[in-house]
């Protein structure tokens, strides 16, 4: 019994010694690590695309297309006038507060440079 435990201890000690040796064994472990990192790549590569990325320059619609599209965007909001100057959309007139988010969602989707909300809110 005593002999067996000594043998086990010896085996364990030699295993520890081998694994600490800077031999070819360390190569195989780093390969294994590289493989497992590659296997996780789909998860990790999602991250750079997701948060607060800067991306390219902002695309601003030309004035004539903004003017044209604003007619549709403001159609459901009588009393609201939208004008365009150098990519900036200025909203004037009156609107009720509950309709304001929808109007601004419509306008913001047209790729303006800026939206000036000068509306009187009732």
């Amino acid at each position, binding site marked *: 019994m005593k002999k067996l435990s000594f043998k086990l201890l010896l085996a364990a000690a030699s295993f520890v010694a081998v694994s600490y040796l800077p031999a070819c064994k360390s190569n195989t472990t780093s390969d294994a690590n590289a493989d497992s990192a590659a296997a996780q790549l789909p998860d990790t590569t999602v991250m750079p*695309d*997701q*948060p*607060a*990325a*800067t*991306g390219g*320059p*902002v695309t601003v619609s030309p004035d004539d297309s903004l003017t044209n*599209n604003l*007619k*549709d*965007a403001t*159609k*459901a909001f009588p009393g609201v006038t939208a004008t365009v100057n150098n990519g900036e959309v200025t909203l004037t007139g009156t609107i009720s*507060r*509950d*309709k*304001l*988010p*929808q109007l*601004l*969602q*419509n306008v*913001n*989707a*047209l*790729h*303006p*440079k*800026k*939206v*000036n*909300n000068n509306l009187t*809110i009732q």
Partner: protein
Amino acid sequence: MALQDKYKELIDAATTAGVNNLQVREQNNVLYIDGTTTSGAVKDNLWNIYNKIDPDYRSGDLVLNIDASAAAGTKAKVTTQSSNLNIRKGPGTDQEIVGKAAHGEVVNVISKANDQWSLIRTNSGVEGYAYTQYLTQA
């Protein structure tokens, strides 16, 4: 960076909600936040946060463009304020009205004509163009 700090809660909420193709860019003192989501609730929540940070959207320092519209080949819910949604012969409010979809009705999106207009078909068989902003992914 100052605007990203001002709208941090909004940006964080968009990130947490998993908004797709999220882009946050600052240019000439305006912050541009773009992205898409399949959830109308996520879009509404982001607009609520925007309104909380900048009451009545008065500052003119953010262009928030979160697209929650239904993709082609899927179903969309009509999310007008309360009124019916006009269905038109072509993509434009100058086009003839061929039918209406009720607020809350679910319709089929056949294709997207452009950024603003989608070709839809109602369950009663009316087919035509509707304003995409009022078609939320069902």
